[in-house]
């Protein structure tokens, strides 16, 4: 009984050893450095192993905790060390201006054709006609609530300001999201609001906020344990909570919500531009996008790959909150000028300090 198993193991081992030598892997021994959020798809086993099998290259991750920090990492030495990054398209133009990015060559991406056309129409992806960002996934930052505390789904952002929810709100620690949400709440143009009004709205909101969440874990923990009952949260992650059976609901309020797109960019002076293209091609492949979205614990947003989106199981479709009617009420985030960014950052910092 034992001998055949040992033998089988030996054969399998030999096959494994032989495989890399036999297969013609184009990037054998190279390393790709990815700049991303922690736990945002690209560092799953699926992503790493799939890429290694295809290219022979290993992947290294550098983590950031927000778009501002992402750019900061590139500014302070990341260029030349990091190959690809995953900014929100609102940052792309400015990053091009700062000389942080190099154009993506769509001809090197076999899966480019599968991306839903509407995502490729976003202006922020292009500079001087050249493509810089490749759409990957998309989602919204909507109202997420505890269904036990709110048997009737709330339909307006007003609920965050409601005095009844003092100390029960989790609010996202992101300047641009904060400003856009306050603007929507105030009925203003989310892309060009009256900042004084926004400031006082956020200061008022601060009274209700229990925590400014910085990670999906912060939010998950807070809402599952009941420490908070309502907040603004990403669609995909909220979908995962719902799928896991937690008493959580997710809506796009009547005022609308911020919509976002995650796009891959290639950093200027990337150690290997070809490898970077190979990576992006893998990331937007139907196989990866479907695999990620179908993993019930991964908290994946909606795939930008139309083929993958069409193949989604119902369960996965529910999790990623990729419903057409949602999209209509979304205000897709737009680029900010450096001045705006500084102002937004200072504004949120001041509100958060409570002083």
């Amino acid at each position, binding site marked *: 009984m034992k001998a055949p198993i040992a033998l089988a193991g030996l054969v399998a081992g030999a096959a494994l050893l032989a495989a890399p030598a036999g297969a013609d892997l184009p990037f054998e021994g190279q390393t790709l*450095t990815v*700049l991303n*959020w*922690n*736990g945002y798809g690209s*560092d799953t086993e699926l992503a790493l192993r799939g890429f290694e099998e295809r290219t022979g290259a290993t992947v*290294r*991750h*550098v*983590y950031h*905790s927000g778009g501002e920090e992402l750019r900061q*990492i590139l500014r*302070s*030495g*990341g260029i030349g*060390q*990091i190959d690809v990054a995953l900014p929100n398209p609102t940052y792309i133009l400015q990053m091009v201006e700062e000389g942080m990015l190099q154009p993506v060559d769509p001809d090197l991406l076999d899966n480019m054709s599968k991306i839903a056309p509407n995502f490729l129409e976003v202006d922020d992806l292009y500079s001087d006609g050249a493509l810089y960002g490749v759409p990957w996934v998309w989602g919204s930052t909507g109202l997420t609530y505890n269904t036990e505390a709110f048997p009737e789904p709330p339909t307006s952002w007003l609920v965050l300001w409601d005095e009844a929810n003092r100390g029960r709100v989790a609010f996202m620690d992101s300047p641009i999201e904060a400003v856009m949400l306050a603007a929507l709440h105030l009925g203003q143009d989310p892309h060009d609001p009256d900042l004084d009004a926004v400031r006082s709205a956020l200061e008022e909101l601060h009274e209700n906020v229990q925590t400014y969440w*910085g*990670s*999906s*874990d*912060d939010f*998950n*923990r807070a809402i*599952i*344990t009941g420490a908070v009952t309502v907040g603004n949260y990403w669609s995909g992650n909220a979908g995962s909570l719902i799928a896991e059976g937690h008493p959580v609901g997710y809506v796009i309020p009547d005022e609308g919500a911020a919509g976002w797109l995650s796009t891959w960019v290639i950093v200027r002076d990337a150690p290997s531009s070809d490898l970077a293209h190979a990576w992006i091609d893998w990331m937007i492949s139907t196989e990866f996008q479907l695999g990620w979205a179908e993993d019930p614990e991964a908290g994946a947003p909606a795939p930008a790959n139309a083929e993958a989106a069409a193949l989604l199981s119902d369960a996965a479709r529910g999790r990623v909150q990729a419903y057409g009617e949602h999209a209509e009420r979304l205000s897709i985030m737009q680029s900010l000028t450096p001045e705006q960014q500084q102002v937004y950052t200072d504004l949120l910092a001041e509100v958060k300090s409570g002083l």
Partner: protein
Amino acid sequence: MSGVLWRGWVWLVLALVYLPILALIAMSFNASRYGTFPFEFTLRWYEALAENRRLWEATLRSLWLSLAVAAAAGAIGTMAAVWMSRFGRGGARAMQGLLVTAITVPWLILAIAILLAALWVGVGRGLVTLFLGSLVVAMPYAALVVATRLQGLGPDAGLAARSLGAGPVRAFLLVTLPLIARAVMSGVMLAFVITFNNFPLHFFLAPFGFNTLPMEIYSYVISGYVPDINALSAIILGGAVMLGLAVMGWRRLRGG
């Protein structure tokens, strides 16, 4: 009677210090990924940890960075301490002032100062910046530990060796160094521990992609985590305490 109250207080404080640590270890065996109850025993997170290459790689990275820094800090610190105790005169006090000042500056502020200076020079983040920054934080501890020992020792032994015909280098290597070996070891260990633990410096000075263990833990805690970090923390904290107790037990056995 009052002695009982005093001792009770000590045990109470000890218990409180260990409360979070024990809670963490307990929760590392809890199935809920959000650390909630009811408690359901599982080894799942330890299994996940065993497969988590990132955490192990970060642990190794932290270990060798700390080892390298500790070795350098021990050497440079011992040299400075010897200089202070034997030749320093007025300079010793100035040197001591510098060492103590270096210890007094909060790590966050020092990290930012070094980062900005490194950017200004054009070096920026990098292994060299990280190494030198860690070294300058750890070295004063090693130097002060050795200097204290040398001060307690006095120059007699070294002078005696000199009077018996040993040259200054041989006198140091054969007589003084063995006498301060334990202090040097303590200094090196202290430097190791401080480097291992110095998150602010790692956070601002490490080159991108060079995530030390504290940085990995930070990124887990800040940007969403998997409970295998509970398992790793439990192993490190539990392991450190076990190691400490083992060392003490060994010393006791040897001592009596």
